[in-house]
């Protein structure tokens, strides 16, 4: 005889596994602080790479104009601007990534909690039937 409650729970669990399962379980295996800081650092490394590429592209675009009549002062000023922008981008993305990954961890943890609750209910039902 088919058990509707069991079918519902199994369907819910299967949908969850298909949609989020693998990623959520991996995320939830970290402590929130560890997960957030690790991913924020990874993001900052990516942003550094991206910033270098961006500066390269801008230099390709306006290199000739910038190099025109180059003096030490102008070079220092350009360096300072590039550095200041880099710091600004790093701060913005650092804060943004921190919030983003923290929220992502919280949501994953909540979903995993519900999933595990459904799984334990299923287990109890199976035990009852035996």
């Amino acid at each position, binding site marked *: 005889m088919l058990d509707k409650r069991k079918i519902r729970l199994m369907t819910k669990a299967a949908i969850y596994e298909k949609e989020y399962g693998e990623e959520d379980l991996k995320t939830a295996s970290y402590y929130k602080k560890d997960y957030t800081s690790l991913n924020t650092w990874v993001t900052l490394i*990516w942003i550094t790479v991206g910033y270098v590429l961006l500066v*390269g592209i801008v230099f*390709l675009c306006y290199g000739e104009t910038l190099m025109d009549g180059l003096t030490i002062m102008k070079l220092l000023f350009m360096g300072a601007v590039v550095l200041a922008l880099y710091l600004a981008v790093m701060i913005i993305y650092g804060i943004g990534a921190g919030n*983003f990954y923290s929220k992502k961890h919280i949501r994953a943890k909540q979903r995993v909690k519900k999933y595990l609750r459904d799984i334990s209910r299923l287990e109890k039902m199976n035990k009852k039937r035996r």
Partner: protein
Amino acid sequence: MSTLLVWKKKLQKFYASYSVYILKGIQFVLGILIFGLINYNIGFMKMASSVVCTIGLAVICTFLPMLVMTMAAAVLILVHFYALSLPIAIVSAVIFLLMYIFYFRFTPKKSWLVLVAALAFGLKIPFVIPVAFGLMGTPVWIVPAACGIISYYMVDFVKGSATALKSADADGIAANLMSFTKQALGNREMWLMIMAVAIGILVVNVVRSRAVSNAWKIAAVSGSVVCLVVAAAGNMILEGRLSYVSMVVSAVLGIVLGLVLEFLFFSVDYSGTENIQFEDDEYYYYVKAVPKVGVSAPEKRVKHITKDTGNRTGNKSGNTEDILLTRSLSKELGIEKERPE
């Protein structure tokens, strides 16, 4: 109006029954359009620009996540650029990498928005983007829209100056690298369109979320008009080559799309609006409640006109359990039939 609502209900039922096939169909059509447009416009590598390749890529991407289609489109563009000139391929790869680093690392599932934005520009209907993105999304969707516009203009620029960009010697490579970067990223028309679309998305999104009657309609119209005005003004100031007829047609299509989206996703009956005021210990509440329009699709009714000559009474007692089970299952699965009168 009620006929339309009945159609909507039927459409919803149809979608619920065949959503898998419908979504895959849409994905396939999108793939054909994207890969077809890329191959048609910049098919420098003969092998990759064949019809077989276009259809093959579209079929493969139909069965994979949308992220794969975005990546396949980017790779196809790079392959064609490489066939034309190595520096162009390098600069384009760096630009795609920047898009990934600064935005798509965080929301890879939204990468298909870039394809839609680029496709709208490819089909010369750019102003449907601010309306669609503003109504269905958030202001953050400006970023994928901008990425789509940059990708489109990059392809458009290469298409327009392919012969000039093709160069083999070492000096030519260095010169190409600089001139392509300068011209592709310094394209004033591109920045004008990015600005128009960004302002359009913001306007549509802000108006849509206001508590005014017909907010979606007002948002679609105002977004399209704002885009049109910004683009036309910018075009006049920059002495650009944008066609005013195409801009007006695109804005009108944007408004039509807005009305369609409202009909599909936001059907409300403003005549039944209730303005309620109440309070608790800390706040006064001024609530505006707008009822949704709900129409149930008419069921097919089967009327038996022949005489019922079966031995129903004889079977009744024996099959009661079966009938009850069938009825309860039909009710649960939503396929309950009308009982004959």
